[in-house]
């Protein structure tokens, strides 16, 4: 469901060093008393992006969003939107609208009045307001619900009203605070799709705050992972997943096996790491910025490893280890194996169930070999 890339510079302006960012966040810090909520964050977001701020609770992602909306003023730093300094501009003068986590629909107004609220503030003629409201109701598929009060709507309908209301003024930038948080899983998946479609058709820049990594991966053109008020990593979903820059990012997104190791060979074209935890050497098929005897971490996703009964070749006498299958979780499309290595370390390996009802599948308590390709894992120094 992620956006299909067309031409790199057209759809991925962040790869173009000369592109002008639409939202510029420069060294923004926010303190609440002594508590540092957002710490020296710098971030560029480009036009028509769907940028996800991903982080756990208390990571500062909502505070950053609220500063963009104007509900909080940064303790220091600058926020620019479309080339204008917005740091001290009150919310009602910003070309920004927000969709609230609780939807914040006005309970004493019906759906139409809620959507028209912002338009009335702009003194738009009544006829135009009516047309715009009808257009938005069609967009969110609530044509027959215009006269209902918010409490006569289901959670999913309220969410759509909130979206329509925040889009009514055609903002240049739409902020969404946990937009799908209150929906159940099935509705959430449908709505994710809708949200991307609406965002693409309107070309509005979206900044979405979420704690749900799956949601971020699905929606975003780029993700900013936040941790303790700081940006831990910014990148496209594939970068974040496949090339995490730190143990935090690797562990936060998806499931991962992480082992400690020590560098035994440090060459420009390869690195060899000895890991007692893994009970094997790791041969990494590219150069890494490290030093011999340095202790570092190696992270690999469950699906990047392979299980076999016979000992595979391995790579340069490395990248193979042994263990016993302790547990299997059958997930239908794949099975997740928990393998206990000789060191006692448990790792997870997923295998696609490509053969129907495979009677020869590896089963409980079987001794197995676990192997991986030279570039399957990430070497992490922090």
């Amino acid at each position, binding site marked *: 469901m992620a956006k299909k890339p067309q031409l790199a510079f057209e759809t991925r302006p962040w790869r173009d060093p000369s592109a002008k960012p639409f939202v510029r966040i420069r060294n923004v810090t926010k303190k609440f008393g002594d508590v540092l909520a957002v710490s020296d964050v710098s971030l560029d977001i480009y036009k028509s992006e769907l940028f996800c701020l991903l982080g756990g609770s208390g990571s500062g992602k909502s505070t950053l969003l609220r500063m963009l909306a104007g509900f909080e003023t940064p303790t220091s730093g600058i926020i620019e939107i479309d080339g204008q300094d917005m740091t001290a501009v009150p919310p*009602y003068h910003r070309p920004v609208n*927000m969709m609230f986590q609780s939807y*914040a629909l006005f309970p*004493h107004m019906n759906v139409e009045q809620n959507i028209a*609220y912002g338009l009335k*503030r*702009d003194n738009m003629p009544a006829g135009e307001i009516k047309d715009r409201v009808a257009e938005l109701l069609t967009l969110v598929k609530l044509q027959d619900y215009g006269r209902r009060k918010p409490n006569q709507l289901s959670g999913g309908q309220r969410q759509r009203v909130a979206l329509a209301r925040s889009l009514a003024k055609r903002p240049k930038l739409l902020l969404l605070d946990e937009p799908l948080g209150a929906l159940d899983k099935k509705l959430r998946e449908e709505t994710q799709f809708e949200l991307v479609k609406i965002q693409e058709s309107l070309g509005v820049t979206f900044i979405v705050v979420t704690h749900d990594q799956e949601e971020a991966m699905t929606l975003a053109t780029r993700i900013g992972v936040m941790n303790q008020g700081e940006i831990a990593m910014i990148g496209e979903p594939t970068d974040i997943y496949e090339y995490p820059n730190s143990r935090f990012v690797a562990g936060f997104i998806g499931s991962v096996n992480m082992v400690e190791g020590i560098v035994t060979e440090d060459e420009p074209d390869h690195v060899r790491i000895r890991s007692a935890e893994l009970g094997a050497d790791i041969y990494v098929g590219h150069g890494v910025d490290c030093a011999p005897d340095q202790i570092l971490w190696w992270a690999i996703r469950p699906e990047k490893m392979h299980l076999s009964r016979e000992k595979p070749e391995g790579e340069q006498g490395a990248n193979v280890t042994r263990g016993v299958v302790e547990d299997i979780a059958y997930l239908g499309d794949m099975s997740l194996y928990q393998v206990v290595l000789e060191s006692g370390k448990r790792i997870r390996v997923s295998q696609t169930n490509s053969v129907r009802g495979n009677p020869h599948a590896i089963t409980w308590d079987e001794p197995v070999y676990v192997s991986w390709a030279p570039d399957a894992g990430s070497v992490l120094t922090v």
Partner: protein
Amino acid sequence: MSTIGSQLPPPRRLLPWKGLERRLRDVGISGRTLVIAAPAIWLTVFFLIPLGVVFAISLATKQFGRPPYSPLLTTEGGTVQLTLHLSNYVKLITDPLYVAAYLSSIRIALISTVITLIIGFPMAYAIARAPEKWRNVLLMLVILPFWTSFLLRVYALTGFMRGNGVINQFLGLFGIEPLVMMQTDFAVYVGIVYSYLPFMILPLYTTLVKLDTSLLEASADLGSRPWQTFLSITLPLSIPGIVAGSMLVFIPAIGEFVIPSLLGGPETLMIGRVLWDEFFSATNWPRAAAVAVAMLVVVVIPIVLLQKAQDAVVEKGK
């Protein structure tokens, strides 16, 4: 062996109400009936019956003696005769004094309510938006005057407003002539607003504290300046509190007796004072009773109307 054990009676526990409950149940009275009956009996004995007595007296005429009104039921030659006098009610309508007193009471109560609302709303809003740890302290300060006698507080106001009172002494420092405040309608307004302000603040506070701040943020986000947000979001959503607070001020203010007699002048005409005069000065119990019944009607009608309006608002909010 176990059968012997089971034949032993269970240990007796001291639950005296159990026996009472059983006996009541034998007569067909359950705990549920009791719970409903208790307040019903209370209301009947201490509210409905006295009200009936007052209504009955209002249909008698004044006479000298004890009690100072004519009996409704008389027995004459073996026939029971019921005599109802409507003259008191006729008098209420025909005598301009009563009509003027009612109108004046409503006017004073209405103006006081509006002033209380204007003063109380910002206070309630400030308390509701204060940091959580301060809210209870601030509410405490609002309630604190209740710990002193109402009479004493009203009386203390005279100390402020009389000719050589605190205010005039203060103004005297700047060479300003003393103001006449006592025995005027102004003093009555001050008294009512001062005394009933907490009744306005408390219900307003409870609605305002529940007001979701994200609604105010959403309004600002959609382009509303603070005053527009106040008019289109805060005010409509606090209507239940405004209605409740206004009723709590308006209704007792209409029948107020202490404040107009202590602070008001001879021209401050309020129905509570008229009633007092009829009862104690003129010893005209039937007339006083009729005034009281009429006042009840005057008060009940706005309550019912406001209740209806409030229900409509709640219904619409659903």
